[in-house]
């Protein structure tokens, strides 16, 4: 099982109507059809899913962990961006 013959695929499963697909893990498979089958067999054995997506792992562009400070730390001081920062008037009701 070489990486070239059976590349890695990321698996996303939607468990119920109305929810979005969630990343659950990855499988090795030769092509998309076999990746879907492998995802079904590995990740939906206990009734977890109604829908499966598989995406070639190589198609995902990921942020560089080394950029963590630049990308994410500046937001830590901007607590006013959280919706909980504001008082919600009672008249608004359930949000």
């Amino acid at each position: 099982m070489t990486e070239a013959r059976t590349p890695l695929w990321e698996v996303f499963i939607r468990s119920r109507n109305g929810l979005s697909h969630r990343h659950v893990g990855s499988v090795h498979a030769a092509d998309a059809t076999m990746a879907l089958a492998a995802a079904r067999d590995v990740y939906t054995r206990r009734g977890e899913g109604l829908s499966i997506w598989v995406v070639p792992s190589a198609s995902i562009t990921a942020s560089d962990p080394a950029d963590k400070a630049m990308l994410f730390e500046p937001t830590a001081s901007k607590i006013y961006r959280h919706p909980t920062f504001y008082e919600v008037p009672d008249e608004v009701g359930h949000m």
Partner: protein
Amino acid sequence: MSDRFSAMLLRRADDALVLGHRLSEWTGHAPSLEEELALANLALDLIGQARALYTLAAGRGTGEDEDALAYLRGDREYTNLLLLELPNGDFAVTIARLFLYAAFIDPFWRGLSASRDPDLAAIAAKAEKESAYHLRHSAEWLIRLGDGTDESHRRAQAALDRLWPYTGEMFEPEDEVLVAADICPEPAGLREAWNRTVDSVLAEATLARPAEGWMQSGGRAGRHTEHLGHMLAVMQSVARGFPAAKW
């Protein structure tokens, strides 16, 4: 009638249990983690089908429970197809066997889901959903093995050639009384559908359909290959070593 009904249930249950056990033998040995889980899933589907059929048979007159039927009968009392008791061989043999059987049993379950017997029809309807996936899984693999590397093609063709003489037994007549009463479909009526499925997958897999010739027979009468006795010895060892144990 009840004897005939039970005998038919045992034929179908034995098929499912024997193939299920063979597939379970891959656990710990499969070519990849993904396929290991897939084969174990298929095995559990088949063992579940066998349990439902044994339980129905026990409730309709064999007098034994599912454990006794599975674990306390000898090879001469098993009436499964010879095809299903053969050793797993390499991965190509395992996949080819699963495919040849699934291409038959999927339309068989579909026919059986229209049975006059409501309990049997319900078991068949559930089993058909499982066998439809078995057919898809094995067909996708067979296509990739046949149309893959030189070695995978050679092994897939060798597997087909080796298993082919065991495929005739699937179409042997079912009990005529049960067929006439619309309790069970006639297997010979499924041959055309089987041919279509097999021919289209083999064409895509670039594999040659083996020539028709002499066909093996005897499993339905309890005359088995030398392999079933060894398989049952392993499968039944705990139940026979610890009679009436609970687990």
